């Protein structure tokens, strides 16, 4: 008799016989994550910049966006886009919902990251740029944002990692992503052990290199900052 253990070897063999299923899901997850990440960064930069502007209305809009999407569960947002909008007549494909839902949700977080990055650059630089005749768009584009990239990259990568994992909400709306395929295989074959371990491993393979890279990058930044502590008069002269 075969072992009844949920992790028994024969279950693994059975699962790897169906590897194409997991492959398709994995590919779908990567596609959704990549597009959602682009959307999140675009929205994040736009709303992050807006939320530091002097215009009250603009700041208000950014605030509403961030608070709304940060303080409601992604699951509800996605479920609403899937069923709510469909009832209202707008039927988006699950792929589009994945990109839009996860992208907009994480855009709110990225916006906060960008905002923190911008406010961490000293006001003196803005004043200096203004005194040189830079417009708002110009000093953001040429002075502030390039400097913030270094600061916000590590938290941004954390957002990217979270974004990848959050694409698994698609499983709930039959999104044919990795989690959905794992659920499907786990429940139809009853081999939930190998199925979830394998899916977990695939998510890990996507997220771990990103997270590691972010950590290394941050460490290097810190080292460089420490190394730069000895006062460099020439640099000071430029930024003042």
């Amino acid at each position: 008799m075969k072992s009844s253990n949920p992790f028994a070897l024969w279950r693994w063999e059975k699962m790897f016989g169906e590897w194409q299923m997991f492959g398709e899901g994995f590919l779908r997850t990567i596609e959704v994550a990549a597009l959602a990440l682009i959307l999140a960064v675009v929205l994040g930069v736009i709303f992050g910049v807006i939320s530091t502007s002097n215009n009250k209305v603009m700041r208000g809009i950014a605030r509403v966006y961030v608070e709304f999407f940060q303080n409601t569960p992604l699951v509800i947002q996605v479920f609403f886009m899937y069923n709510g909008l469909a009832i209202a007549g707008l039927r988006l494909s699950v792929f589009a919902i994945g990109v839009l839902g996860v992208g907009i949700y994480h855009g709110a977080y990225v916006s906060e990251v960008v905002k923190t990055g911008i406010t961490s650059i000293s006001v003196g630089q803005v004043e200096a740029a203004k005194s040189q005749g830079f417009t708002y768009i110009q000093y953001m584009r040429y002075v502030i944002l390039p400097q913030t990239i270094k600061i916000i990259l590590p938290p941004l990568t954390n957002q990217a990692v979270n974004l990848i994992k959050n694409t698994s909400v698609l499983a709930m709306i039959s999104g044919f992503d990795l989690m959905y395929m794992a659920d499907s295989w786990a429940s139809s074959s009853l081999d939930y052990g190998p199925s979830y371990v394998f899916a977990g491993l695939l998510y890990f393979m996507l997220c771990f290199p990103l997270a590691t890279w972010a950590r290394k990058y941050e460490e290097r930044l810190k080292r460089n900052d420490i190394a730069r502590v000895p006062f460099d008069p020439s640099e000071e002269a430029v930024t003042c």
Partner: protein
Amino acid sequence: MKKVLSVLLVLGLVFTLAACAPASTTTSDSAADGSLDAVVEAGVLRVGVKEDVPNFGLKNTATGEIEGFEIDIVKLLAKEILGDENAYELTPVTAKTRGPLLDNGEVDLIIATFTITEDRKLTYNFSTPYYEDAVGLLVKKEAGFTGLADMDGKVIGVAQSATSKEAVNKVAAEKGITVSFSEYATYPEIKAALDSGRVDAFCVDGSILGGYVDDSTMILPDRFSPQEYGVTSKLDNIALTEAVDGYISGWLADGTIEELITKWGLNY
């Protein structure tokens, strides 16, 4: 890169070890199978049931209790095994959670519209079937479908872990049409998807479907591959399985189960 590989290797080892360790203990368990005694000793029968399937196991929102045909079977079993029809503890399960709950010992039995298949018998013990049902299709009236034959290229919503997908696929192939499937974790989610037009049909066992018919939907006359429900237990809990199987067979013979089926209106 070497570091990453070694980390992965260690992880792999941990999982294989985790897989091996319980295997050795279970074999020693089955040698002196005390599964029935364990239930008697605990004084309570722990059963996983559905709470979202009308007439089988549905939570009564007024009382907070789960009620239905399968819960009545739980009561009968509790009375036979423990002498008290209230000596049971129910755990709501879904198709996704029922397997793990049984494996990790949270519940002794699963009585949750669990369809018996040859393949599944490799993983769990099933009792003699206490109910037989065929898969049916629930569609929107306005869609104008008269049967599966009209549904070429349509999307059918099925429950994860349900055998309805294979059943419909087989019939569809015979009729020369193709349909695609979307799987959902719970029945209400499929109903929501049908209402919002995400799927064209809600496909699940006919008796379960009965609980989801409303003014805008109807059940098509098509019925596919009859499915049998059994009381499920862990593969190595042989004493418990045999006892349960004995009771179920007895109730099938003396008409007790038939009475319950009538009571819950499942003999349509």
